[in-house]
Every structure is written in C-alpha cells, then in structure tokens.
C-alpha cells in the first residue's frame, strides 16, 4: 500500500493476489510517478488468495482524493467485495468512488494516466473501460 499527492483522481487496485496488486501498482508508478494517489490491496484476511472488504476500505482511504477514486478489480469476488466496500463508505464519499469494468493491469495504468492529466472521475472511468470496448 502506498499513496501520495492529492487533487487528481485516486486509483485503487484490487486483486485476489497481493503480488499482482502490488505489481500493477508498480507499473502505474512507473508511468505517472507520484502524480496520482494510489493504493493496492489483495488477499483474504488470512493472507491467502482472495479479497476482503476491510482491505479495500483501507485502500480507498489511502488513495482518497476530493476528485474521487477509481477502483480496478480482477475477478468476480474482487468486484463484489469492492461494491460492498463502496456501499459501506460514509454517504459523502460513496458517490465519488467507482468500480471500473476494465482489466486490472491495463485499466489501472490507463486510468492513472488519464487521472494524472487532471481528468474527472467520469473521464478516468471511461478511459479505463473504453480501452478494450
């Protein structure tokens, strides 16, 4: 987990595998440096492959930006747990977090690149989702 710089849309990477999540975050950093708030989470609460709501909530908090947060996920459980986490956020934050329907690695890199140019949350989500559409 790591984060930095506010202002631009934050990016959260959620994978069943902590190694994939961390690796994707490394690739994002290589592209955009510290220009976007970034956090990753992966694994179940016991450290096995899986995702967990508490970890996702922590990652959203770590990557928080007033411009919002875009979440990139890998497989089904990551998406369901991310949507659950979004619903558990305080009301004022809930509408500013989106789960993108995009491949996790490519989506994260594209979303972060879009965010680093100061784009809105909607534009960040759209660019991640359009790449493979």
């Amino acid at each position, binding site marked *: 987990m790591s984060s930095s710089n506010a202002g631009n849309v934050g990016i959260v990477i959620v994978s069943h595998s902590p190694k994939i999540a961390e690796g994707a975050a490394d690739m994002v950093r290589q592209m955009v440096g510290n220009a976007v708030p970034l956090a990753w989470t992966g694994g179940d*609460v016991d450290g096995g492959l*899986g995702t967990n709501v508490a970890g996702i909530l922590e990652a959203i908090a770590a990557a928080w930006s007033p411009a919002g947060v875009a979440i990139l996920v890998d497989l089904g459980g990551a998406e369901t*747990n991310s949507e*659950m986490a979004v619903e558990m956020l305080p009301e004022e934050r809930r509408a500013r977090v989106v789960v993108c329907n995009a491949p996790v690695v490519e989506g994260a890199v594209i979303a972060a690149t879009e965010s680093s140019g100061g784009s809105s949350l909607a534009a960040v989500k759209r660019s991640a989702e359009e790449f493979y559409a």
Partner: protein
Amino acid sequence: MSLDRDAREKLVRALADAMIQHADELTSLDQAIGDGDHGLNMKRGFDAVLAALPGLADKALPEMLRTIGTTLVMKVGGASGPLVGTFFMELGKALPEASARADLVAATDKAVTAVKARGRSDAGQKTLLDVLVPVQTLLAEGGDASSVAAEASRAADRTIPMLAIRGRASFLGERSIGHMDPGARSTALLIGAAVATLVSEANS
C-alpha cells in the same frame, strides 16, 4: 416467532456448525468448478460469528442478524462474503423484533432481492439464488418447516445439471455442468440448520 436468548445462541451455533462441519465438502465442490476456497471462506466467516458469542445472542434477533451479516461481509472473502452477508444484513433490517410468519415472508423477499442486486444475478445461473428463490417462494406460498428444509436440499441438487452463467464457475462453460454449485449447497445447509433449530425451539 419469538426467540429468547438461549434460542438465539442455539441458532447461531447451528448455522456455524453447519458450515464448519461441511467445510471440506464445500471446498471439494468448489475445487470442481471454482477456486476451491468456499469451505475455508465460510468456515472463517462463521468462526468469527462464533467468536462474537455470547454477546451476539444478547442482541435482539434483527440486530443479531445484521451483526452476523456484517461479520460475514468482513471475514468470508470471496464473493460469498458480500452475498451471504447481504442476505443476513437485509433480513435483520426488514424483520421486526416479534415477527409473525407474514413478516418473515416479507423480510426474506427483501433479503433475496438484495442478494440478486448485489450479485447482479437471478435464479437459473447456478448460484445460491437457485436455492434462495425457490425456498422463499415456497415460504410465501405457506410451506411448512419440513417442506422448506426439503426444498432447500432439492434446490441445491437441481444446480447439478445447470450451466454456470455467473461467478467463477462460468469460466468453465459446459464443464460446469454435472457439479453441484458450492454456494447453493452452503445456502441449503444454512437453511436446513436454521429450520431444524426453529422447529426444535417451537417444540420445546
């Protein structure tokens, strides 16, 4: 239906035991068509629920159900955490403290609808909804306890020939046919355990 503290604790223990005792079976079902963690995940969730006893059973039934749901959401992992957790949370939200049968029918209807929304799914896709939906329908039609428990078990069996359309098993396409859905099985086990406890309480 009104459950005293002792009955609420029995209900919690029965639900947890059903998952803990069948963890290996659920895992082996999930190894066939999923990622093989369902038994372990459900066990982890219900171990955490058990750890919340005895305080958990001090709560009124609606609040107890909501707490079970939140615990499952936070601990289970996988998609089952939010799905099964949402069922308990919504059931707790919708159920009045002293509930009549009509309240249970209305609350389970809301809870099943919430699970459909959470999973963007419905019956027919080889998931836990293939147990929840027919069982809720039977409950609404006036089915008694033993018929509800039997339907839960049969409904899980009926997922065997189904093609998975949602969830990890859908990646297997036609190879998902011929295996019982692990989520349907765990849901049927939970319903069976709940019914058995409620019947024994009603008779005691």
